[in-house]
């Protein structure tokens, strides 16, 4: 049975493996090669150079990187704080309400991100849902909450909320109830239970949730464009510009590779520390 398992396992993995090989790893390889091509060429058949990388570091593209990572980190931190109580409720306190929240949140994921962000524009703009009604009812008016950095972070928090929530729920669900009760029984205050039991035992969920939110936020583009009005240019935006208007594929590739390397190493590091069978199967080995 074991040898058959091995063979079938390999075969089963083949379809998706093939897709990923051809449409994921190959393109990445292409980007890698393009990143060391001379400026503004469109073919891979050139002599490699590192001009693009030099450009990245000299021409201040690192500013976009810092903005992206800074906002991603801020939004991830905020998400952790706001999602934790809800995730705790869903994992330990609510019974059927848990399902209600799950469905409600999942359904928002099916609504295109654009539409939802557009909805925030409508809500927050001058003349929008909030300001318009406020003005008509109280005469109080404000300039509209858009086109600044905080609203971009707000957009990131909104967009990636489910990606922090669900892994957290899974993680907290893994904390055995009796361990919490025993800790309390042995003298731990609520805060001590949180620090000594909840945090360490739900670590896999925290890691995945945090990683997912951070990575997706770092590569996000729509929030800064629609909500922020481009007051800040994020790295994904620079990459897009380089590829389209800038007509500079090597530069775009170099920027992408840098982004991918940073995100990639974080992901690999985080995911390797987590036992996937545990968090997905819910069984303690």
């Amino acid at each position: 049975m074991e040898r058959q398992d091995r063979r079938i396992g390999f075969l089963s993995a083949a379809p998706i493996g093939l897709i990923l090989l051809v449409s994921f790893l190959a393109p990445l390889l292409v980007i890698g090669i393009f990143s060391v091509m001379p400026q503004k060429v469109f073919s891979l058949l050139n002599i490699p150079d590192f001009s693009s990388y030099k450009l990245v570091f000299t021409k201040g593209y690192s500013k976009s990187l810092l903005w992206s990572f800074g906002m991603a980190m801020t939004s991830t931190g905020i998400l952790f704080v706001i999602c934790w109580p809800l995730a705790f409720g869903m994992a330990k306190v609510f019974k059927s309400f848990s399902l209600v929240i799950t469905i409600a949140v999942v359904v928002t994921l099916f609504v295109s991100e654009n539409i939802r962000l557009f909805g925030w524009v409508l809500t927050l703009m001058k003349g929008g849902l909030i300001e318009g009604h406020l003005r008509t009812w109280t005469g109080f008016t404000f300039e509209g909450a858009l086109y600044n950095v905080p609203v971009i972070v707000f957009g990131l928090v909104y967009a990636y909320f489910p990606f922090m929530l669900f892994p957290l729920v899974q993680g907290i669900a893994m904390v055995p109830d009796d361990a919490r009760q025993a800790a309390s029984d042995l003298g731990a205050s609520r805060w001590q239970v949180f620090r000594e039991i909840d945090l360490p035992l739900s670590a896999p969920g925290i890691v995945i949730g945090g990683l997912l939110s951070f990575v997706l936020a770092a590569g996000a583009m729509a929030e800064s464009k629609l909500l922020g009005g481009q007051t800040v240019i994020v790295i994904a935006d620079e990459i897009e510009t380089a590829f389209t208007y800038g007509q500079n594929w090597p530069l775009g590739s170099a920027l992408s590779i840098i982004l991918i390397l940073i995100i990639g190493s974080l992901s690999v590091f985080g995911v390797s520390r987590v036992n996937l069978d545990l968090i997905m199967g819910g069984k303690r080995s």
Partner: protein
Amino acid sequence: MKMPRAARAALYLYGILTILFLYLPIISVGFASVSKARYLTFPIKRYDTKWYGKAIESSTVQDLLWTSLSVALLVTVISMVVGFFGALAFARYQWRFRRTFQKLILLPIFFPQAVLGLALLMWFNALGVIPSWKTAVVAHLVWISPITTLIIAIRAYSFDPALEEAARDMGASTWTVMKEVTGPLLLPGVVSAGLFAFLLSWGNFPLSLFTTGADSTLPEWLYAKMVSGYSPLVPSVGILSIATSIVLLLCGVITMWLLRPRNKFSSAHTG
């Protein structure tokens, strides 16, 4: 549990507020879609559903619908099949590269979609393939098949391998085992994965933006109109898009519900 009443009530309240917060923008779009005015301001002075009519009649919108639908359907079918086998490789069979495979599957999910879209654009260009809605299918698959794999894998974890072994013991071939035992057991997972696949593809923007080429999906058009050249059709088209999602979600839920009692092999949860 030991939670004091006040804290528990506060938690429920928090949950409800969160849901409201999540839906607030959608409500705004909803309001906007029934505003008579061409340019949006709140409070809405006059209500009218004419924009819906215009949207449905518009041939542009119909093309978009068709494109989005084609992409989504193809992605759904393929990712369901791929995900089924992938899930088995992920959770069920002990084979040599399983751990590596698990980590590999996760990578596309942790990847910024805009960058992925651009990378694929370049890749297609290098291969000499002209981007169209078909290439968008490939792009969506890269991101969505890992997701369907994971969804089905969750189900595969609670699946008792003894059932398959018993079938084999009774003389069934590998193919028969898969058809008679594994398939039916994982079917609910496959259906919900398919649902996810359709809806995620239907609403996807970053990947579509770069890989559809001359064709355009609904989200792409919406984005273009939001950024420049605003059209009053935008809110209505948006709501129509959402409505389609909801209809599909309901269909999926009904399918799941229909599937349940017929599943004789209720998988036993070990432990």
